[in-house]
């Protein structure tokens, strides 16, 4: 595409033809135009008269930088560059040289967008690095999006969560601008931000009919009541991500109420702030209600707990589908997982310990009939048990990511034979994950 732009420029400045340069599909019309007239002046008017719809179509293929170059070619092309359709989506990248290696969206471009295109914006995200200035810059832009009717807003920290370092009121007031003005927000990602209950109320007051997706993991200023308000009012909510401390029986019941659409997916992060933290329990009946109301819903749970904090979990059946243990999890807990997670689709275990997980894995193969993905980090499994596990799961295992160190050779299988055995049962070539050993 860039080659095309340069060629255009050359034509317009009256250079000789270079009809050998390649062109892609949509460029055929250009080729014809070129061939029709060799006179630069004539060509210029032809290029300039190119219908805006064609320009729009072409520009949509160009990355922003190339589009910006193209806009310098002529007035007509500059006009096309500013067509609303090209400004529906934007991702603001806010980085400081002192804290990031990546380039930021140019401040002049940001000014231009706010000035000329803020009312065109519909799908917006902000990517900020770990510096407070970047988070501030994001809030600054947010506060100016008064004419916007956003459908999507994402506040994404790419390193340390810098939104959390802002004065809370500053952040809230910027966010509220969007909530109040948009009125048709469908998707909102505000993980790792200081959003609070009152601002959620504002969100709900203005966007309850349209909100479908809300991701707010690690938002410490929100209380269970705050999120309950969202669940009660936003009946179209299909995707929700939050921390365990916000989860309550009431919330699950609200999401399962008749007025509510089917929930598609619920993500819960269970994070320990201090060793020995106590966690509340959720009643089985609440989970049952969820499953009855939304039989296909996915429950994704990420655990970042110390080994001895798992007390309240996996004592009863829980409809979890995707389970991730980010820290060491005991053999006993994995045993309970096998017993109580019949809907399990993916299991990822970061670390376990030095006792083999043979029985636990076999039980999981037996009872988790929907399991298609498993990942094991620092664990131990005997080769025989592992082969048995794979045999029982068979071809449904589409993801099998086992660190090489996990597999303990025994009488029946050594490390060299095991990958053939496993490949046989999986129906494809398989090797364990390896780490360089030099």
């Amino acid at each position: 595409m860039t080659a095309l732009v340069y060629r255009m420029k050359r034509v317009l400045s009256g250079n000789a033809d270079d009809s050998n340069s390649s062109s892609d599909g949509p460029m055929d019309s250009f080729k014809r135009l070129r061939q029709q007239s060799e006179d630069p002046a004539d060509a210029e008017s032809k290029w300039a008269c190119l219908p805006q719809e064609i320009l729009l179509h072409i520009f949509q293929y160009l990355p922003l930088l190339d589009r910006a170059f193209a806009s310098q070619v002529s007035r007509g092309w500059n006009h096309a560059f500013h067509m609303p359709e090209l400004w529906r989506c934007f991702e603001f990248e806010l980085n400081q040289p002192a804290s990031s290696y990546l380039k930021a969206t140019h401040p002049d471009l940001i000014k231009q967008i706010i000035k000329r295109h803020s009312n065109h914006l519909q799908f917006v995200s902000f990517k900020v690095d770990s510096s407070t200035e970047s988070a501030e810059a994001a809030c600054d832009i947010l506060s100016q999006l008064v004419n916007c009717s956003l459908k999507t807003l994402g506040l994404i920290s790419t390193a340390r969560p810098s939104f959390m370092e802002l004065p809370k009121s500053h952040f809230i007031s910027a966010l509220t601008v969007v909530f109040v003005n948009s009125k048709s927000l469908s998707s909102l990602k505000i993980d790792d931000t200081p959003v609070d209950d009152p601002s959620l109320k504002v969100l709900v007051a203005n966007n309850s009919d349209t909100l479908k997706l809300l991701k707010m993991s690690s938002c410490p200023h929100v209380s269970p009541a705050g999120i309950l308000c969202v669940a009660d009012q936003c009946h179209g909510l299909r995707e929700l991500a939050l921390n365990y401390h916000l989860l309550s029986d009431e919330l699950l019941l609200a999401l399962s109420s008749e007025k509510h659409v089917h929930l598609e997916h619920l993500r819960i992060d269970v994070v320990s702030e201090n060793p020995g933290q106590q966690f509340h329990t959720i009643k089985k009946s609440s989970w049952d209600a969820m499953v009855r109301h939304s039989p296909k819903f996915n429950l994704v749970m990420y655990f970042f707990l110390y080994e001895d904090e798992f007390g309240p979990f996996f004592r009863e059946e829980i409809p979890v589908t995707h389970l991730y243990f980010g820290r060491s999890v005991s053999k006993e807990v994995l045993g309970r997982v096998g017993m109580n997670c019949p809907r399990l689709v993916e299991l990822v275990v970061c670390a376990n310990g030095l006792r083999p997980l043979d029985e636990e894995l076999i039980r999981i193969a037996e009872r988790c009939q929907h399991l298609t993905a498993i990942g094991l980090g620092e664990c131990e499994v005997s080769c025989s048990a592992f082969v048995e596990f794979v045999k029982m799961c068979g071809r449904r295992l589409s993801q099998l990511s086992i660190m090489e160190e996990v597999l303990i050779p025994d009488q029946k299988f050594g490390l060299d034979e095991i990958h053939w055995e496993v490949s046989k049962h999986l129906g494809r070539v398989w090797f364990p994950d390896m780490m360089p050993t030099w």
Partner: protein
Amino acid sequence: MGGNAVHWFRKGLRLHDNPALRDALRGADTLRCVYILDPWFAGSSSVGVSRWRFLLQCLEDLDASLRKINSRLFVIRGQPTDVFPRLFKEWKVTRLSYEYDSEPFGKERDAAIRKLANEAGVEVMVRISHTLYDLDKIIELNGGQSPLTYKRFQSLISRMDAVEMPAETITADVMGRCTTPISDDHDDKFGVPSLEEPGFESHLLPLWFEVDTLTTAVWPGGETEALTRLERHLERKAWVANFERPRMNANSLLASPTGLSPYLRFGCLSCRLFYFKLTDLYRKVKKNCVPPLSLYGQLLWREFFYTAATNNPRFDKMEGNPICVQMPWDRNPEALAKWAEGRTGFPWIDAIMTQLRQEGWIHHLARHAVACFLTRGDLWISWEEGMKVFEELLLDADWSVNAGSWMWLSCSSFFQQFFHCYCPVGFGRRTDPNGDYIRRYLPILRGFPSKYIYDPWNAPESVQKVAKCIIGVHYPKPMVNHAEASRINIERMKQIYQQLSCYRGLGLLATVPSNSSNNGESSMSGAAAGPSSVDSAQEGSAAAAGRAVTLLHLHLTTFCGKYLPNS
């Protein structure tokens, strides 16, 4: 026939299996072996004391071996492009030989020297002996691309012709009638420098350098030591009669007298010799069984990274490196310094970094632990920074292997799953429950009982008092909250990989683009279709068409476009 030969030592610091040297000798009247001390060699950014000392010991050993066959080593300071034209004239050189260097900077430097040699009418002889195979042949077998997974690499290896036998050792017999003109002032002009020398390139030594560190080296450099170690290494394997990968235990963390990696890197030990000796031993012990590829693990990993790097001058960078995922790493010099200097407050990490600084070697699992901690595990700092620290301190870290390993360990390339994060407390505790390793390298923590030695900040004040070490005063507090950091980081990794693979599902494992091991690899773009979308809930046709793409995405697009799938 006749003529004056010069052999240029760079790596390959040995007289055994040195085909370039052996071929140079054939029919030559004189031979001079040179080593050029090139302080400005572009490939390495900094060299630590351990590396200098090791290198100088290698050179001493070479000189001693050459003395035994009536020759000497000529150590010359300067840049090769300046030195060689002078030598060609002064010594009336007719033939120049050197071992092939597969690294991009090496190839560039050698091309320049080749040109100078051609201009001076000097014949150039290059032989491959730093790697098991001709790397270009491996790449050719893979359709012109370096393989990006170890599995793929292994399958290519199994289809290559057999490894060439090591060349005969250079002895007085092999020298034949070839002589080396040695002047009386050879030691002054061309002698191997010593670290204690006041005139030595002291500006290259780090500021914290202390004379103490010059004493007993845990890893003595040189071919002689390398060959002794090789025998010991094989003896131990034979005695154990077990060629499986040894189980990791507390002892593995300590430097072993049979460790070979630094010797392989500097070329004091020929990888081909090691390969054949391993093969012979295996056949003897296992009664003529065909050895599995895993037997050569250490050698093949090294070979893998050399192959991956040879055609990629940006291999040691993130930006502009077609095989490296562009990650939004944090710039944080303060945090980096704490990690590099062993002041993180996590004894496991600090002990490892201390061993590294003091001795120049750490176990590969220790490398995984500290690399994970610096990058995707806890500090979210760029792998390039870690690579530079290893380059300075680690004896066996050369350009290709070091950069490649760091990309691997930080999950920046090679299709690595990123879900497993090494815990800076748990991992160490599982490896060495007693904590002896910690006590050895961090004596300040000696007084802590095993229960608390990996997380001393959790020890009650009374325990800390008894240990005469108050956390926060005598030993730093932990610099991050690991649970919090790893939670955030796994989310970041997932964000990046989801964008890369355009994966919209819920699985964690599936976010890493898969690489079909059957017939080669899909590109790192995998299912990626180009610029990533703003989020998953977009509506309307305008969304797909009107995506505004920032420079980050441009990187991805370029990256996707450059690396094409194998056919």
